[in-house]
């Protein structure tokens, strides 16, 4: 951890909006995401603060917890560790973005940073943290290496999106992503009410149109409610189900082109375009797919551009027997088909 700032490495006590207090070692601050990461964190619960939902303290020490700045109510830099105890599950707290797996419940290993002054600062959110970020930057090279090393690991385990990202989280943290992926950030909340109002309008609109072009809406409306399920008349039900869909020849599945378009709309062009080689990226899924192999094409293609990752993959390549998966997008999509 860098020594460049007086605060990185200090013991921090913060209180979230739910009045839960956490103590840990300040690890990084990220202004882009407005988050801060503490290492060796313990939750002290709501202690005696007046709150609607009192929460007990916990014994466990969490390797890292990343907090959302907007959900932090108060933050104190202090070097004198305080003790508390009692177990229970780490309670819900929206301020927590991710938690790395528990380390042993014993709370040393926290390097008691600079001795002396018991309280280096008063509730400090703006200026000191700002400084921290400035000073953080030079240190990045080191993290980056960690990050990549970790990828190999993730690649190997595969299948874990976030679980291992949790761990990756701290290495990764505040590091510019090596490829062009941006961290996503939504400025405001999605407005459900507004959207749902719109939905009502759409429905009304539709109803009006219905009168004009009623053939355009092949609806199931003719069926009476009782036709679907009525315990009194039959043990069996008549609700729409996969078997019926298939019997009627509907796969219910859009063709791969349509799906690709939808995917682009939902997740963005980059995400979809990178789907083929992305599987190896950062431990997401590549390993998960080793069993059936065949991402080679899309993959090796990419090797040219992404020299940095080759090593790890090559080692695995032996396991891929079937090639040529990549172009057959539609095949990869059948989530619902006979998954046993």
């Amino acid at each position: 951890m860098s020594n460049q700032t007086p605060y990185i490495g200090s013991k921090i006590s913060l209180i979230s909006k739910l009045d839960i207090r956490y103590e840990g070692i300040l690890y990084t601050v990220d202004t882009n995401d407005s988050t801060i990461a503490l290492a060796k964190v313990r939750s002290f619960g709501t202690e005696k603060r007046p709150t609607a939902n009192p929460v007990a303290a916990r014994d466990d020490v969490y390797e890292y917890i990343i907090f959302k700045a907007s959900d932090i109510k108060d933050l104190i830099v202090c070097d004198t560790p305080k003790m508390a105890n009692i177990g229970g599950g780490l309670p819900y707290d929206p301020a927590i973005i991710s938690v790395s797996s528990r380390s042993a419940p014993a709370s040393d290993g926290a390097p008691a940073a600079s001795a002396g002054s018991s309280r280096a600062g008063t509730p400090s959110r703006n200026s000191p943290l700002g400084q921290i970020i400035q000073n953080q930057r030079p240190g990045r090279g080191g993290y980056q290496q960690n990050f990549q090393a970790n990828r190999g690991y993730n690649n190997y385990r595969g299948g874990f999106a976030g679980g291992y990202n949790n761990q990756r989280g701290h290495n990764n943290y505040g590091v510019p992503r090596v490829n062009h992926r941006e961290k996503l950030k939504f400025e405001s909340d999605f407005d459900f009410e507004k959207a749902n109002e719109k939905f009502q309008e759409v429905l009304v609109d539709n109803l009006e149109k219905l009168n004009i072009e009623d053939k355009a809406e092949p609806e199931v409306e003719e069926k009476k409610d009782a036709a679907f399920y009525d315990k009194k008349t039959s043990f069996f039900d008549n609700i729409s189900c996969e078997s019926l869909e298939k019997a009627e020849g509907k796969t219910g599945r859009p063709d791969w082109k349509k799906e690709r378009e939808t995917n682009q709309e939902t997740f963005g062009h980059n995400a979809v375009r990178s789907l083929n080689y992305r599987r190896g990226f950062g431990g997401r899924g590549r390993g998960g797919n080793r069993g059936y192999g065949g991402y080679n094409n899309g993959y090796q293609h990419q090797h040219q551009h992404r020299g940095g990752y080759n090593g790890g993959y090559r080692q695995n390549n032996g396991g891929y027997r079937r090639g040529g998966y990549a172009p057959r997008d539609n095949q990869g999509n059948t989530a619902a088909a006979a998954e046993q």
Partner: protein
Amino acid sequence: MSGAEQQQIVPANNGDENWKAGLNLPAKDRRFKTADVTDTKGVEFEDFCLGRDLLMGIFEKGWEKPSPIQEASIGVALTGQDILARAKNGTGKTGAYCIPVIEKIQPALKAIQAMVIVPTRELALQTSQICVELSKHIQLKVMVTTGGTDLRDDIMRLNGTVHLVIATPGRILDLMEKGVAKMEHCKTLVLDEADKLLSQDFQGILDRLINFLPKERQVMLYSATFPNTVTSFMQKHMHKPYEINLMEELTLLGVTQYYAFVQEKQKVHCLNTLFRKLQINQSIIFCNSTQRVELLAKKITEIGYSCYYIHSKMAQNHRNRVFHDFRQGNCRNLVCSDLLTRGIDIQAVNVVINFDFPRNAETYLHRIGRSGRFGHLGVAINLITYEDRHTLRRIEQELRTRIEPIPKTVDPKLYVADQQLVDAADETTA
């Protein structure tokens, strides 16, 4: 659970009336439960004349009293009759067949005596774990066999003693056809999620499989959904099945359903807001394709939340690890395909999100049944696009349920565990 009141109920076990005191009981779940699991006649597990060793396993699992489906089915199953049983998601069907199946097995007879077939490997693991726990005090060999594992291991295993097999259809059929799994003593067959097993997805495997069983056999079908298509199997292979139907309606009382109207491109934003606003204990997020599962999992980590993902195209060892770790609570969110739509029981899940709205009522019903397990409360949130609008109304109508527009804040009483503790919120009406 003091021993005193139990004494007269367990006449057979009078010899040692303090056996219950020695039980290693788990912590009691004090959450409110809906009538889906509490509306019973008051039968006790002891009333079925089960062996004490099995009873110990049952209580040590934390099962105190039979749920309605267990009440209705354990006794009948013990008589050896064929059963057709229908009960809602997460109301105790697994226990309803595992208990009689285990009770009837004679440990001294070293042969496969019962077989439980389930549609997915994850479900097989889950079910076998329950059987192992229930039979903890009995010398019972439970074997789970599914695709995606080394066949040789299964063959080795079957060379030794196996009493009870939990399997997915393909692998066990293979083992039977190879003559490795010998079924001449297997007189009990359970099909869990029977309608799925008898659907086209399994293309008649069950018809072939059942021919390996002796003529004198008991066949039991369990599910929450039974389309008419099941009848052909019934007529061919079942003998006067005893029908148990505990479903007045299809949906769970404890699961509140909402929709949020979104454009396709707003879905991730919407999900982000849900993560921020909801008190998610654990969530399962469904997508309609394996690709979308992976794309979404990636997006979720990009927006700063952690998640696992799982789908059928992953290597089995990774599927197992994700499933196991998610159950352990190592991660809050799980993105998945319809692989986990049926049967999966993770009590900590209080929120189900249909990131992609399913196309039929059956899938919808099973998906939202991943929360609200065993009569607990949960919410299901559906992201609805313009294209989904008719499907939404159709499914709502078919299931005779209400899917309401999502309110500005979802009342925590509807899904947050510590708001449901019975002592605190006795009057909760779900």
